[in-house]
């Protein structure tokens, strides 16, 4: 029996099973696997001339309503496809189908966000022939989607007037992941204590280079600027 560790082996051997632990340097991100998936997905969409836009925001921020109004305004039949993420139901998918989009619904169950893997598989159910924009509407959540790219080329974060102007300060991580911020439901501004100026100052503090727009899908206020931003990316994708 080996005297130093009590194993059955005799003679010289390496004590890999000895009680002396050793340290292994790892330096690996827990999100690296998802990032790899996301970059691959983004590249394959770009190669097909598809501009992938992610929408994130809390439940009720107005993601689906904005998307409905956007698709109606863009009025380009066959150009838009949508991946809808929700914990349960296909309510949003039906709303998208009603405005003529090709849509697939991901029911995440108890999972609080979409990730690149889920979106990649969701796309297997979508015919992307002729599609120029892919919309990825995340599960309503201002926290968890921050860490998980979904293969979108650019991400839009929505904060509605009803949610409060303090949200940028409270959820900085989601802003750090975005390319544009929208203050939605501007038609509610006269009725709530939401200070647009104060909100934008807070955005500047946590994400100094993040552009922001104020809009209402209901009244159409600010929609022209939003649609220009959407189209500008599509044009870039085609170039």
């Amino acid at each position, binding site marked *: 029996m080996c005297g130093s560790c009590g194993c059955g082996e005799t003679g010289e051997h390496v004590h*890999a*099973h*000895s*009680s*002396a*632990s*050793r*340290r*292994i*340097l*790892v*330096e*690996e*991100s*827990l*999100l690296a*696997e998802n990032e790899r998936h996301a970059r691959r997905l983004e590249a394959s969409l770009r190669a097909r001339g598809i501009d992938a836009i992610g929408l994130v925001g809390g439940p009720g921020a107005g993601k689906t309503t904005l998307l409905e109004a956007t698709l109606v305004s863009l009025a380009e039949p066959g150009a838009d496809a949508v991946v809808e993420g929700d914990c349960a139901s296909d309510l949003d998918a039906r709303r998208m189908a009603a405005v003529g989009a090709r849509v697939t619904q991901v029911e995440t169950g108890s*999972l*609080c*966000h979409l990730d690149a893997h889920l979106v990649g598989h969701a796309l297997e159910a979508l015919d992307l022939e002729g599609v120029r924009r892919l919309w990825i509407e995340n599960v309503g959540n201002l*926290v*968890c*989607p*921050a*860490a*998980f790219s979904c293969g979108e080329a650019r991400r839009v974060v929505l904060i509605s007037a009803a949610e409060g102007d303090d949200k940028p300060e409270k959820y*900085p*991580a*989601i802003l*750090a992941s975005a390319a544009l911020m929208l203050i939605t439901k501007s038609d509610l501004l006269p009725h709530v204590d939401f200070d647009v100026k104060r909100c934008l100052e807070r955005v500047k503090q946590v994400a100094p280079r993040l552009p922001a727009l104020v809009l209402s899908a209901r009244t159409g206020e600010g929609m022209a600027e939003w649609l220009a931003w959407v189209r500008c990316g599509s044009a870039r994708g085609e170039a």
Partner: protein
Amino acid sequence: MHEAKLCLELLRIAEEHRTRAGAGRITALRLQVGPLSGVSPSALARAFPICAAGTTADGALLRIDEASGRELRLADMEVI
């Protein structure tokens, strides 16, 4: 919350490195978590022993160090 999912990813990476090192068991893991990672260190700490049960990291010590920005990574680990 997705901390359990991240714990499984943490265990997957750790297991890969344990196998590569030809070690038997993982006894400690050191994780670096930034404030913009969107992850709650306390929720991770609670989820870890549950996810690690029955694996080669069963009973391993999880140390969570504060990092900067969106960082969320397994820095190093101890094996025997």
